[in-house]
């Protein structure tokens, strides 16, 4: 059996989605998959709820689909050998809704072969996710051929034990999808983006892994998404960043050996202790 490749080509599809219009969004996904294919992309990541739009409120149930829905099968067929991650409202077998990400492609039979259900649902400020979704209950590796990888959705990254658990269990790559409402202040970069970059860089440093952040752009209900999708190397450096506010396909080579090299120098995960007592 051939050794898995240690490098692959990553694409981040920083798109705008039409709120509550899965058909139009699916067409856009298919077009961007073709664009990515032309650039040799092996793994293409779309933002959180990319197939439905984010601020759905009571439209949430109307755009929900099962994990084997025709739209996701079409996405898988279009992906072919490419791996594609997209966001959607998942109607589970138990009859509840999840803010989910699906991984399709890799010439699988067409059915999605991995789902991540958002684990932390922000319900504060302008966020109302717990009104419409139930949180997921499982953290798993996303089955990619190149390495162990974790898939997190937006708020999941703000609870750093998830990234830590994934990295400690062997993930060298964390894929974070997002629909982060933008804010601006005195700086050149959107104020909320600066927080995100602190977070992705800190995660990559502390967990010595690649951190990839795919955010959306566009407007919903008077609120914008700032884009600024980016890739952070295991040493905490931003390798590349998409522009703010505009749609963009960001393509980069990921060398997974970089995570090994950083871990040899900086064995933080190996040094982690679980025998420290206290407080109280």
């Amino acid at each position, binding site marked *: 059996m051939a050794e898995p490749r240690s490098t692959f080509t990553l694409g981040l599809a920083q798109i705008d989605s039409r709120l*509550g219009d899965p058909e139009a969004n699916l067409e856009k996904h298919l077009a961007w998959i073709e664009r990515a294919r032309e650039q040799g992309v092996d793994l293409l990541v779309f933002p959180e709820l990319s197939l439905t739009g984010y*601020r759905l409120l009571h439209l949430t149930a109307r755009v929900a689909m099962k994990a084997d829905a025709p739209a996701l099968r079409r996405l898988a067929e279009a992906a072919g050998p490419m791996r594609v991650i997209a966001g959607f409202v998942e109607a589970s077998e138990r009859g509840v809704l999840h803010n989910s990400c699906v991984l399709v492609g890799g010439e699988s039979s067409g059915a999605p072969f991995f789902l991540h259900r958002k684990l932390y649902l922000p319900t504060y400020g302008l966020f109302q996710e717990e009104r419409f979704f139930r949180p997921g209950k499982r953290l798993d590796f996303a089955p990619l051929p190149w390495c162990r990888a974790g898939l997190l959705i937006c708020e999941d990254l703000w609870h750093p034990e998830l990234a830590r658990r994934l990295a400690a269990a062997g993930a060298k790559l964390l894929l974070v999808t997002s629909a982060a409402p933008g804010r601006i202040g005195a700086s050149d970069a959107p104020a909320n983006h600066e927080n995100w970059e602190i977070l992705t860089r800190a995660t990559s440093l502390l967990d010595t892994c690649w951190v990839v952040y795919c955010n959306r752009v*566009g407007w919903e209900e008077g609120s*914008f998404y700032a884009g600024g999708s980016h890739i952070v190397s295991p040493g905490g450096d931003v390798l590349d960043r998409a522009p703010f506010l505009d749609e963009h396909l960001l393509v980069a080579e990921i060398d997974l050996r970089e995570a090994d090299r950083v871990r040899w120098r900086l064995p933080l995960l190996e040094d982690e202790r679980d025998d420290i007592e206290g407080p109280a």
Partner: protein
Amino acid sequence: MSGMNSPGKSVLDRLRLNGPLAEKVLTSFIRDAVENSGTEGVVVGLSGGVDSSLSAALAVRALGPEKVHGYLLPYRTSSPESEADARLVAEHLGMPHRVIDISPMIDAYFQTAIADEKDVDSGRRGNKMARERMTILFDQAKRLNALVLGTSNKTEILLGYSTVFGDNASSLNPLGDLYKHQVWQLSRHLELPEQVVGKAPSADLWPGQTDEGELGFSYVLADEILSLLFDQGLSPEEVVERGYDERVVKRIVRLEQQFRFKRRLMLIARLSGSAINLDQEIPRD
């Protein structure tokens, strides 16, 4: 006074905006709203003041001047300087503009239809004029297949310094999350004529009127207090502890509470389990 006891930045420092980024975000807001609504541009009432000038300037940068239709809507007692400033802005921005005198409509109501009412105050007259202007803008928007661009800023929305279904009745409002202080900043970034940006704000409801005279405090002071209350979550007592005039703080808190209804129009009595806006909170986008 501002921020003397605040950790780190002063209040006005916190309200500083990056001009190019704010311009990019707000022009994309206008472009997105116009494209998604299938309309062909915007109409905007030009008062000669800084708010409507800034809205128009953002729209011109978003859509090009030919898609931004300015309307000067004076009443016969409106100040000629306001009209001259509105013209100056329209010409500065290179946008088409038109004057429609609202005196016949206003006079038909007050002097004929309700001529028996002897005690009409300037507030009612001002409100009627604001609503008359909005009906004209919506009618012209229909004619031009355009959206009505709003010009109310965050300070006046929070203070309720607006007319229900008048100036606050726009289709989209790029300024609604900008305090007055930020409106001035962004107007200077866009290089609007200083004659407009630098003058005392006035609703021009009667000769010589200024907003700050009528409100009883300056916009900068209101912005600082509102920002401490709403952006930073301080209690009114904590704002006073920072050295702000207690009477002004109390008045601002009262205005904000008194006029909340202006920010949530169309109160529907819920009877079913699927009431619009409560059980069926459907996005408009």
